[in-house]
């Protein structure tokens, strides 16, 4: 059992190296032009999808009702994190995250039509209109949600890693959480179990500086990822505005999980431009200037675009085309969602029990539902 939390400690020093160098990290140097473009394309598809969903949220449907109800936590500004991490997934790697899950869902390869339809509460949604924005799932893409309770998904992610190990599969689970989630007890219980049992999980803290309206300084003592040391876990930290940097660091942590079955914690600095959810007026806890600073200097899509232009992988024209396609995709996702039917009241009691959904194979007797 590895006992020193030093395996990846040098990555902190590495992150001080100039950002442009991350393109040269072996995991990135190995990328073909097409693969580089795909990373960019996925980020811009997430951005356009979410911008379109926000317009839908603010607008009315043709009969004057709301398109999207409840919460809509946008990932805008954080795209390089999910895209960078998920681009490293092999067939036995798994992902679980919190409620700010649109980016991860698209990054693992979910189709945006059912994703948009889920926001609209339609039966064609990825969870048949039963989960909503916070509860996307795609087990066929190794994506296990989409979880609404802060920190509650982290033990589940540890369980995915436990299952991989139990079944002798060489893979890793990535358990994403926000900077606010690190203060939940369940997260610390999961850290301890993962380290104690040598489970192949990477805990990914997406540090966007705020948990709702509370800044990191007002909520958390000490460096977030460093808490891993108390559990004898390696940890690393990087800037999450450059998809190459995210990949360079995550590759090491995923390798540690897959090859040595050791957990670790990664803290990725990022930023959200939008309010916590759409209902957040976003004027009590941070300044417009701060948001503009990030938008202008660190936007992950702009960072990536400039690199691809400099590398000669993209031209202005081909970049414009990718953007136009992403906008068109988002638009057709909205059209699909709009045109899709709602679930009916008869659907409410479907998908509650495996047994009630498989009456021919049911073994239990008696009433499962009550009125």
């Amino acid at each position, binding site marked *: 059992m590895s006992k020193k939390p030093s395996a990846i400690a040098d990555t902190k020093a590495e992150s001080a190296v100039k950002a442009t160098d991350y393109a040269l990290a072996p995991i990135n140097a190995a990328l073909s032009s097409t693969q580089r473009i795909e990373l960019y394309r996925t980020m811009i598809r997430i951005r356009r999808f979410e911008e379109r969903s926000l317009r839908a949220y603010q607008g009315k449907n043709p009969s004057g009702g709301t398109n999207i109800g409840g919460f809509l936590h946008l990932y805008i500004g954080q795209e390089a994190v999910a895209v960078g991490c998920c681009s490293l997934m092999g067939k036995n790697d798994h992902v679980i995250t919190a409620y700010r899950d649109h980016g991860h869902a698209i990054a693992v390869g979910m189709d945006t039509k059912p994703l948009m339809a889920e926001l609209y509460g339609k039966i064609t949604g990825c*969870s048949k209109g039963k989960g909503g924005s916070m509860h996307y799932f795609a087990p066929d893409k190794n994506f296990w949600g989409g979880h609404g309770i802060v920190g509650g998904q982290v033990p589940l992610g540890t369980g995915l890693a436990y299952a991989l190990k139990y079944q002798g599969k060489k893979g890793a689970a990535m358990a994403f959480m926000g900077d606010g989630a690190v203060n939940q007890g369940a997260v610390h219980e999961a850290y301890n179990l993962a380290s104690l049992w040598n489970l192949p999980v990477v805990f990914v803290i997406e540090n966007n500086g705020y948990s709702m309206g509370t800044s990191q300084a007002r909520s958390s003592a000490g460096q977030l990822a460093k808490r891993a040391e108390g559990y004898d876990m390696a940890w690393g930290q990087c800037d999450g505005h450059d998809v190459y940097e995210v990949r360079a660091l995550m590759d090491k942590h995923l390798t540690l999980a897959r090859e040595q079955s050791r957990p670790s914690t990664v803290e990725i600095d990022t930023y959200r431009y939008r309010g916590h959810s759409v209902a957040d007026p976003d004027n009590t806890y941070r300044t417009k200037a701060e948001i503009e600073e990030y938008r202008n200097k660190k936007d992950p899509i702009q960072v990536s675009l400039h690199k691809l232009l400099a590398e000669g992988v993209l031209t202005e024209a081909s970049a414009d085309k990718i953007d136009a396609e992403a906008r068109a995709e988002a638009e057709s996702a909205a059209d699909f969602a709009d045109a899709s039917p709602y679930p009916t009241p008869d659907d409410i009691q479907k998908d509650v029990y495996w047994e009630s959904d498989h009456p021919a194979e049911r073994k239990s007797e008696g009433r499962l*539902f009550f009125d």
Partner: protein
Amino acid sequence: MPQITYREAIRHALAEELTRDPNVVVMGEEVAQFNGAYKVTDGLLATFGPTRIVDTPISEAGFIGLGVGASMLGIRPVMELMFWSFYSVAFDQILNNAANVRYMSGGQINCPIVIRGPANGGTSVGATHSHTPENVLANHPGVKVVVPATAYDAKGLLKSAIRDNDPVFFLENTILYGDKGEVPEAEYVIPLGKADVKRVGTDLTIVTYGRCVIHSLKAAEVLAKDHGISVEVVDLRTIRPLDFDTVLASVKKTNRVLIVEEQKPFASVGTQLAYMIQREAFDDLDGPIHRLATIDAPAIYSPPVETEQLPNPGRVIKAVLAAMA
């Protein structure tokens, strides 16, 4: 037929299912090396080894959440809570994650987890260790809740619970662990959701489950002998799914009902039963539905008084006499 204890019956069910299905894992505090806080898992580590019988740290939210996650990938974890009372620190994992994941994923994900352990008062361990959360658990669509009263039932029901594709919460009883009953050597399972008429009678139906079945059977003896009252005892065995047809058939026969439960009265399992009985058998009732529950206060420590706070044969007899008056 061999007589074995309720504890051994549960252990045999675990051993048989561990042998049958390599995906079954038993996990919990002190289940392996210590042989179980209540010795239910005694000897399993020696037989099945540390990969299948896993000691956990004192992290109910952590290890139950881990079990939920593992179950999504096909493991069949059987998690022991040293006391069901400790479910409160894992509430989110049990009732948000296990109970809801199938629904919120539109039926894409199953959670075939079993959580088992004792849930009872009567052992002078105070209010923190004496919770009976079957009503709270059963209030959550998506879960199944089992409360066995006898060794035979415990074994057959636990085997079904482990094979079930939905989350099953299995509530045992520390006071029953040592009770012996006849259990066949040949393999058997009892389907969840099937009540059992433990005593046939004609004058009044007691609907009950768990240790209150034992109290009710003792009371029924006395009532027959000393009062000439013939009581039918219906043991629900499973709270959800609920075999209400057996309850109805009995009520329609006796026309009088007493619900006996080791629950606090407010919004208990009995509350739900009373609603259903009046709704579906109103015209068959010769009198109001009666209920005997735990006296409505946190579990008292004082040993002799706690016995009186809980249902017991004496209190059942009184309640039956009141219902027959």
